[in-house]
């Protein structure tokens, strides 16, 4: 029944997230407890060390420490950034919308364009258009997305300076309205979103192409032709809808790639999202921030997978009657 199935999937998702928290916890431990850093202070007295240990809760047994850690995490207390001294969660909260904007737009475009390319390639299998699209996808798959980003900057921000080379808004400008500011953001979004879309395009294309090829080989396609239907209608009304279904679940495999691309592309374009936050944290060795962004990234991917499963459930009539 659907309720039970949904509960099962959600439970699995939560368990996965729990293991991320456990992983983070042990990473935290591996780095050594903070008192070892204290030991660098030659004059720290045993009482001061003991007090510090109590503050950090290191004097408690391991399972208790873990529960503390887990409890903190779940109440969004992710520690303090070593660089800015601000709560990690605050920094993540500010950065998250920007990453969602970049990743969401990029995924949407990549899905639309990639699917369209996949249909074209599958219906022209073996011909030049198919070969061309396959080669193009192979190239975008093999090229580092940050390198593509740099080339985009070279082309459209330096050589032909029509687009901004970074950041999300033009610095130092006062905007007359929300709409004007949104337009400015949109202009700044063009290059990063292009880089992200190009990175994802190949994979969505290949998935859709393979799915279409499978569907086009099914008997019901010939059966529809037999009823006197034009080929473009057979493709549009019968092949594509059936081919889109596997796309939903298969593209869930890409979510990890999306997140990785967000890190490098935001870095290139100084886009103030979680990726840029991570990059700065790497340079600063700011571990709390790195763990925090890792947690949020993982949670995002886990959630996206769950949503994809739910979406598939609603789309495929065959699943619903199970």
């Amino acid at each position: 029944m659907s309720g039970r199935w949904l509960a099962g999937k959600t439970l699995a998702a939560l368990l996965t997230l729990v293991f991320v928290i456990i992983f983070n916890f042990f990473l935290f431990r591996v780095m050594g407890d903070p008192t070892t850093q204290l030991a660098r202070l030659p004059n720290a007295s045993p009482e001061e060390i003991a007090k510090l240990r109590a503050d950090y809760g290191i004097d408690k047994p391991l399972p208790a420490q873990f529960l503390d850690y887990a409890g903190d995490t779940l109440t969004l207390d992710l520690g303090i950034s070593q660089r800015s001294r601000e709560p990690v969660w605050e920094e993540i909260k500010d950065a998250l919308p920007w990453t969602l904007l970049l990743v969401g737009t990029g995924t949407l475009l990549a899905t639309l364009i990639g699917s369209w390319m996949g249909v074209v390639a599958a219906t022209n299998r073996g011909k030049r258009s198919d070969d061309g699209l396959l080669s193009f996808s192979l190239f975008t798959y093999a090229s580092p997305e940050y390198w593509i980003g740099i080339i985009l900057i070279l082309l459209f921000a330096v050589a032909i300076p029509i687009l901004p080379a970074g950041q999300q808004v033009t610095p130092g400008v006062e905007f007359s309205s929300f709409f004007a500011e949104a337009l400015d953001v949109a202009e700044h979004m063009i290059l990063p979103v292009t880089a992200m879309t190009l990175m994802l395009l190949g994979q969505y294309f290949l998935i859709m192409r393979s799915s279409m090829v499978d569907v086009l080989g099914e008997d019901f396609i010939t059966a529809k032709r037999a009823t006197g239907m034009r080929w473009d209608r057979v493709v549009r009304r019968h092949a594509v809808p059936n081919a889109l279904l596997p796309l939903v679940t298969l593209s869930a495999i890409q979510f990890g790639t999306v997140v990785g691309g967000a890190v490098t592309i935001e870095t290139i374009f100084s886009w103030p999202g979680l990726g840029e936050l991570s990059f700065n944290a790497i340079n600063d060795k700011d571990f709390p921030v790195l763990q925090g962004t890792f947690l949020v990234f993982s949670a995002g991917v886990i959630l996206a997978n769950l949503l994809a499963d739910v979406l598939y459930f609603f789309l495929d009539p065959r699943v619903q009657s199970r």
Partner: protein
Amino acid sequence: MNERSARDLLLHSWRGRFGLSMLGVFIFVAVFGSLLAPDDPDASSTDVLASPSLSHPLGTTEQGSDVLSQLLVGAQVSIVVGFAAALISALLGSIVGLAGGYYGGWTDRILDALENWFLVIPTLPLMIVLASILDPSLTVLIVVIGLTSWAGTGRIVRAQVLTLRERSFVERARALGASDTHIIRTHVLPNTLPLIFANTVLIIAVAILSEAALSFLGLGDPTRISWGTMLENAFSSGAPSAGAWWYVIPPGLCITLLVLAVSLIGFLFEEHINPRLREAT
């Protein structure tokens, strides 16, 4: 699949020939890079971010070093890390997949859950977190990439072992009293190795991209020049805004071509092993 058919496959398709020759070029450069380099890649000069000239065919870096020399020397890191990490990943994935698939029961359930976790978790952030707590070096890169990329191989191996386990020749062997190791060695492994091999080639491509990304983000070996660190230096010194295309394009192009070459070979193997793929492509 035997060695002869693999060779035929590679040599008879233009994709195979292109991939193999390109890979050969890169491996050659990786081995002889420092000999081929016209200048000392670490030597700095006052001729900063200079565009290509006779003395510097690919211009200079922000330190005045010769880009071409750095490019040639950088090949080694990509090849070494790519192949080594993929090897670790293949070993780890095969062991986990074999153990889980063959022994079943709780072993399988635990290993499968572990596998699924690594598959869901975003790889680059995971690698970043792991690499950042350690001191950067080639070994760290190899280990981190290897430890995070094995799940794909694991899943394929497990699926294959599960199918093989049901086949009669395995049951017969067991009935004859053959030990598990013997069965694995003589029946399961030979049927699984081609699959592992084809998959590992594709993992090499992923590993190369991963090393480049980690180096670009500043987690690479600071004592070695790699294409990823070249891009990192170029970016952080403002080379794109300065229009220094000679610095910025070659490293990324090399990464792309190397990954292309390895991927072409890998896809060819995969198609060969799975004829159904050949039908669909």
